[in-house]
């Protein structure tokens, strides 16, 4: 199964990497509310990073700032690369509620590949590989908007996969889907990571974080309180809020 996946990872050496990503003192105010404050970290290629925190901790906002959908009020976001077209083209994001186009499944993937200027034979090959990996091949000519929630989320992953990003951001990708679809989605996320793509995922689900994470960023009320390897975080969290969160005693 991994054969189609291995080919889909970025080709090393084809272009300079855009990673690591540095955030320095990032803060975000909206309508006078301080939603993120003094967030600094580095995302290196490799480990699967889970941004963990309660609802309202600022996880999604942080992800959107990384992905360039929001500009921080304070601080800096710096990629290794300075070429903005390259930075945009080599990252992808899967939203909590993916927005799919009113077209067929195939056309939804084709759309993003056309935007990236991928040639037609290459597009067809990548679409087939993405559909196969996400198990959507039999639904390829169906309208994307008439699929079930789980299938729509798989299509969003297929669309991200087809782009062959160097880094993919997933915003609570399993928040709206059933347990079976969640298990499958987690296996897809692991394959994404195994294929060499940097995966950054937000979650408030401790089980999911412990199943997936190599590295945990713990966010609480807009502040990054802990960044640690997953094993260390779950065994010996240093921050008192993190300990409370792990015990299920931390309100959002």
């Amino acid at each position: 199964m991994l054969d189609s996946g291995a080919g889909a990872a970025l080709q090393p050496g084809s272009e300079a990497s855009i990673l690591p990503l540095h955030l320095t003192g990032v803060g975000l105010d909206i309508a006078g509310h301080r939603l993120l404050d003094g967030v600094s970290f580095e995302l290196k290629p490799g480990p699967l990073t889970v941004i963990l925190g309660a609802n309202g901790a600022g996880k999604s906002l942080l992800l959107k700032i990384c992905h360039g959908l929001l500009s921080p009020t304070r601080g800096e976001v710096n990629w290794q690369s300075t070429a903005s077209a390259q930075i945009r083209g080599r990252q992808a994001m899967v939203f909590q509620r993916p927005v799919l186009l009113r077209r067929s499944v195939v056309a939804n993937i084709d759309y993003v590949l056309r935007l990236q200027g991928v040639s037609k034979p290459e597009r067809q090959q990548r679409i087939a590989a993405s559909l196969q990996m996400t198990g959507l091949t039999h639904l390829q000519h169906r309208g994307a908007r008439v699929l079930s929630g789980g299938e729509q989320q798989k299509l969003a992953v297929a669309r991200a996969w087809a782009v062959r990003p160097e880094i993919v951001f997933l915003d609570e990708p399993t928040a709206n889907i059933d347990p079976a679809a969640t298990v499958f989605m987690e296996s897809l996320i692991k394959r994404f990571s195994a294929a060499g793509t940097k995966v950054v995922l937000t979650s408030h689900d401790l089980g999911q974080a412990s199943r997936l994470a190599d590295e945990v960023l713990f966010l609480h009320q807009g502040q990054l309180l802990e960044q640690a390897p997953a094993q260390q975080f779950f065994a010996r969290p240093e921050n008192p809020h993190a300990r409370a969160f792990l015990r299920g005693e931390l309100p959002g």
Partner: protein
Amino acid sequence: MLDLDESLVEIILVSLRVSVTATVLAAVVGFLLGAVLAIWRFPGRGALLVLLNAMMGLPPVVVGLLVYLLLSRAGPMGSLGLLFTESAMIIAQWLLVTPLIAALTQQIVADLMLEYREQLYSLGAKRWTMLQTLLWEGRYSLLTVMLAGFGRAISEVGAVLIVGGNIAHHTRVMTTVIALETSKGNLTIALALGMILIALACMINAAAAFSKIYAARLYG
């Protein structure tokens, strides 16, 4: 008295030709203008939106009068010789329908923008691509907008009467004939034409509704 068979077909054809052409041309400009107003932010945008919304309710006779002044012999475009032709009627109806289509399109695309903006930006779409994508995503609603525009065009009498002149075998359309025949007391003919007009409008709307339902079932 109207020679029903031949004249009637002629009148219906002129009506459809004028209103369909005006609506299609208005859609080309209106969709684009509406989408630009929904997606871009520029100085004067607010004022333009208010103006556009106000122009949705333009009285047809006033538009007819303006186009008449524009196209009359002494007017700025008098040399074109367009007054009392189908072209003049198309221009007048285009002026009536374009603000309606543009204002409604702006509303639809602005709503779509809320839903799609982040996703499209994330996929790497630039604004011009966003515009094309959103117009296509809104196609079912925009079809309804176009029908509303066609409805305004085919049903108005004031503008086409003034700039077309209701000339037999030339610029006579259903609404101007209904007005003329009613004033002459030929209520039977006026009523018959009125029913044909309503039937036509129903048929076109039904066809559009069915294609919309069919497409929506396919693509959600």
